[in-house]
């Protein structure tokens, strides 16, 4: 299946749904790793929205990106509860272990506030991280 066909299939799966835009964009982001200008235009046409409206939504939410980044992404929680458990000191550790190979992103709360520092890699979550455990996690990403 080529990209255009895959995009059409995603759009068709959500057509007619009330408030379809966010679920549709989630699927586009998941399949293509980003929401490219061409996809924005196709989604806008399918949902009878202006291109500006779709772009406005894409640019508003942190989960949607305009460009794909093929690297694995480790989300390190930087919110207050993880700060209280020493997460800030781990940022440099994560970045050193990651180099250019892994993307280290901040996330504000994974709901693991009693067992931080916490991180998410894909849909797997990790807690009670110290420097060694975090570096190992980044290396395995």
């Amino acid at each position, binding site marked *: 299946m080529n990209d255009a066909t895959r995009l059409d299939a995603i759009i068709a799966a959500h057509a007619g749904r009330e408030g379809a*835009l966010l679920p549709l964009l989630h699927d586009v982001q998941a399949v293509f790793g980003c929401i490219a200008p061409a996809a924005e235009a196709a989604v806008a046409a399918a949902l009878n929205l202006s291109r500006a409206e779709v772009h406005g939504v894409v640019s*508003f939410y942190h989960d949607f990106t305009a460009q794909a980044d093929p690297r694995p992404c480790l989300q390190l929680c930087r919110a207050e509860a993880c700060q209280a458990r020493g997460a800030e000191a781990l940022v440099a550790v994560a970045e050193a272990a990651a180099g250019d190979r892994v993307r280290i992103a901040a996330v504000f709360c994974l709901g693991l506030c009693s067992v931080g520092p916490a991180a998410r890699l894909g849909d797997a979550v990790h807690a009670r991280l110290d420097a060694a455990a975090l570096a190992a996690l980044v290396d395995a990403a």
Partner: protein
Amino acid sequence: MTTIRISDDAVALACGADAVADAFAAAGCTVERVSSWGMHWLEPLVEIAGQGFGPAIPADVPAILAGRSDKAIGPIAAHPFLARQQRLTFARAGRTRPLSLADYAATGGWAGLRRARSLPPEDVIAEVIESGLRGRGGAGFPTGIKWRTVLAAPGARKFVVCNADEGDSGTFADRMIMEGDPFALLEGIAIAAHAVGAAQGYVYIRSEYPHAVAKMRAAIALAAAEIAPLAIEVRVGAGAYVCGEETALLNSIEGRRGIVRAKPPLPAVAGLFGCPTVVNNVLTLAAVPHLLAEGGVAEYARLGIDRSRGTTAIQLAGAIRHGGLFETGFGITLRELVEDIGGGTPGGRPVKAVQVGGPLGAYIPPARFDLPFDYEAFAAADALIGHGGIVVFDDSADMAALARFAMAFCAAESCGKCTPCRIGATRGVEILDRMRAKAPVPVPAGDEDATITPPKRDENGALLEELCDLMRSASLCALGGFTPYPVLSALRHWPGDFGR
């Protein structure tokens, strides 16, 4: 064959529960995955015939099975952390398999919905009002009154929306309900839908909670027959904190930017797709099945103090020895929670501050730990209960850095609709940077605005207070309106951290 029980809640998974479960399975045990008891420092917590072992690692398996493990904690249900609680909303925590309809029905599941559906909507609402239940999302608005407004509002279609956008740091009770007792939340939504005449419900879950999303979707599929004719759908957020604000959340479900709407009209009158809509937090809706079951209202109204009735799900987080979920009647003091129940900080360092109510909640010093957990008492102390999260900080915390973080978070997450929040938070970061700087910050060369003399170091505090006053009184929603709570409380109680 030995049956062992281990949670599959996100905290347990993050602490390595799967590896422990696999090790028990490899040793020939039957492994049941249950919800979490909420004693997070003991996760992964293993239960064998009521006896607990934790925190367990795979290497502990032989000793646990041989009955000579040093991780033994005795009978779980009698553990002091649990024995001191009054669990109503979390009655099933640790005791049932989250997606087992049989376990749910065997523990009183669907009794509230059956009884509610045998009553006219007005009677259901009257019981919810009588119970004194108030919104657990933070605002504390009486739930029954909100439902009555939706019932009375004219509209061909009505909706129930569950706000599961639990973005506040230090809170995880919504996540625990969704991952541990998802049918209870669905039952609460179904009761609300019956009370207001809604045919469709939505659960808006943040994308940072993939396990909760999966459990809720599975639960909806399993319980479709029980909740029919009501249809419930999960919608996943996209990383915007402000979508926890109810009108931004509605815009997000509609497929728009998560921009806050001006009120009025209230969502109860013109909410989702312009229709009358109940927007309630997970904990609010999950409290409802118990209320509607026989005798629930009387039990609920008996607990708590003054106008804060029933139980509250307190979440102990941050630098605390015994972190986890503590459900109890309103009125318990911070000192009991942090020192007696929480056991202080893990390393034994002194507690410097607690933040109650998430990123928008005030920092409270130990000198004020006699404050009772009660909506009005907190409001009178310039603080808020919010969603019931308590984040503990030890004496290494830099309160000025935390105040700056609050402003920076607000600036990053502002939806941009109102000026006090969008611009004010950025100005707040700048003021705090000047206050925290060891030397005066030079004015950038060529800056046209630099003809205005930047305030002197000691004037920054006054300017910050003025800015906070503006944000608090003129912002459209709680994001800009409440960010002054952590900032001003930090400034007031720890002036030394600001170089004052």
